[in-house]
């Protein structure tokens, strides 16, 4: 029963929103390598979304290209989700390991990524009046990913419906806390840097005199 290859498992998980991840858990399958590949594709999709849209659907600021926001919007965001969910669900009797959370969540992102690439390609053939097709695909892809993500968290931790909702809300809160701490840390580092540079300037002036 259910002897699928890695590729077939991705297909199975994506096309079976309710049992796909349960099956995966039952057969203890899912590959971390594939998960990382999907997150990398998410990163590419974020760039494509910001940069490669057809010109008739708006211009992107093309004087400079800064890759940091795209990394933050894809890879860092995903990492924050995984870490946040793991730290919350460890406390909430979740059964998932960090590895499994990462794999399942990444698999759930496939429809979103597909949607981005499809709409980016379509945007080069459609005009503004036909934007409804793009919107429909966007909503479909994003909605599907949301459902899959929910199902993934539910199966990986073996939660009930209500508990999954609770866990997801807490996960988002945890992500915000992490962001807050990160900003705090950055500003602290900056302060220390300014302090050191001031001391350096002061000393260098004294030496010169």
């Amino acid at each position, binding site marked *: 029963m259910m002897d699928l290859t890695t590729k077939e498992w991705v297909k199975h998980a994506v096309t079976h929103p309710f049992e796909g991840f349960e099956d995966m858990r039952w057969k203890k399958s899912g590959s971390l390598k594939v998960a990382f590949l999907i997150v990398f594709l998410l990163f590419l999709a974020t760039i494509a979304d910001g940069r490669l849209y*057809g*010109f*008739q*659907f*708006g*211009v992107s*600021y093309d*004087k400079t290209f800064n890759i940091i926001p795209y990394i933050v919007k894809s890879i860092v965001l995903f990492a924050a989700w995984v870490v946040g969910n793991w730290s919350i669900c460890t406390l909430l009797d979740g059964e998932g390991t960090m590895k499994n959370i990462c794999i399942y969540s990444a698999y759930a992102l496939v429809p979103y990524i597909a949607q981005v690439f499809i709409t980016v390609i379509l945007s080069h*053939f459609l*005009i*503004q*009046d036909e934007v409804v097709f793009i919107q429909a695909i966007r909503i479909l892809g994003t909605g599907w990913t949301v459902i899959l993500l929910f199902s993934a968290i539910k199966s990986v931790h073996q939660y009930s419906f209500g508990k999954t909702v609770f866990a997801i809300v807490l996960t988002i809160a945890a992500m915000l806390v992490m962001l807050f701490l990160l900003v705090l840390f950055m500003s602290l580092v900056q302060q220390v840097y300014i302090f050191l540079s001031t001391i350096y300037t002061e000393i260098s002036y004294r030496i010169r005199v």
Partner: protein
Amino acid sequence: MRNISAKLISLAIAGAAAFGSAASFTASAAEPYDVYNYDRWGEAIPSQAGYIADRAVSGIDLGVGAFSSPSDIFRDHNDIFYIVDGGNNRIVAVNSELTEVVKVYDSFTMPDGSKTTLKNPQGVYVSAENDWLYIADNENSRVLIADLEGNVIKEITKPTSEVYDQKRTFLPQKVIADKAGNVYVVLGNITTGAAMFDPEGEFTGFYGANRVQPTAEIVGNYITSLFTSEEKKARRRRNVPTGITSFDIDGDFIFTCTSSSTQTTDTVKKLNAAGRNIFANMELAFGDYTPMYDTSQNKVLQPAICDIDIADDGNINCLDFTTGRVFQYDEDCNLLFITGTIAKQVGGFDHVAALETMGENLYVLDSQKDTVTVFVETDFGKIVHKATALHNAGYYEEALDPWYEVLKHDGNYRRAYVGVASALLRKGDYEGSMKYAELADSPRIYNKAFEGYRMDWLKAHFGQLILGLALIAVGLFMLARLAKKKKAAELAQHMAQEDAAAEAEHQQHVREAARKAVEEMAEQSENEGKEDEQNS
């Protein structure tokens, strides 16, 4: 004799000024500042000058003595300039070349024959309908209406109406009149708009008040006011918008400007007869997009539009007090040129006060330098104005050549790309239009051009497209069948293999069973033999 010599001197100065201007023209790029414009992202980029400072005219040049804090300049329908010389309590009428004084108004004859003088006048207007002079006589708290000979026709003083708060002063700063003879007066310390008087001089109300800008503080105050008592509310500072600073009339519309360091909305308005602002919902920004930060004063230099003038061709000229710059917009509020700066040289200003236009020239009055600076249009300005006028009138194709010419002068000029893209779109050259729309960063035009381009492409390649689609469909069908066949074959092979394996297994079973049986039999016979031996 003395008069003649003064005239001669003034002529000589004017001649020298004219010569100097000619020299500066040949030298070109004589502005004491870097000319810039804005790109689509609101970032300043170098640009070509649309105007160049020609000369600065002072009261001494005109032979009437230095101006003192002049506050307004107005050109009437006969191209006579009226300069309000507030510090000297007079109005100087100058000819269109700004070389000779036509008349100096310092005292007026009242209807009863007595003389009256001005006291710090601030604004002047001459109506084209009846040649009346309207003077905002600030410290006399009145608006004087006189004919061009200096005979007072009417005097408008502080209204006694209940609508006008009697505790408030009546200090006219600027005045205009519309075709029907209604008089509009900008008053100091009044934030409810310009006071409006009917042709008889009766107060009829206020016109064109600014809106309060919804800043965070004001929104917060509103929310707390829901919970505070009436007494507390009465004691709190009221939120009032900034009053109008200046205005200009163009046909049926009155354009107002507001110079304020805090208010950023409603700085320039286009009001119809009912007082409705046409620009209200257009999200326009006048003046510099990114205000400069002044390190010496530790403050952001917010634009403060202190005067506005509508040129004969409909262009809107705004004078920014903070930076001493004239921002010229076309009638659709697209920025055309930025001229002037804060500087000592000709073309730079100290305290700009008022702005006037005549034909292609700009006249800027400086109340500290006490001069009128004349800016003349450059070649580049001429082409841009020509192209803009054609474009705005809807003659896109006729505007195409001027726009190409503009691009030859200045490849950064965004409006030109928009113009070329629109013209090519109208012509049906969709591919070219797409190219220029992309250069102009205009998705709207690109969208239309792309629609046409796609339609053309579909028409030209419809057969191939259908053929291609059919081929792809057939190919997919074949592929699917092939895959099916392959799968079936594989399955069959697999089953056959399984059958063979099962057969082999079965045979082995049989063989083993036979062997076992044989062995058993052999054993049995052996045992029997043993038993036989024991028995025997």
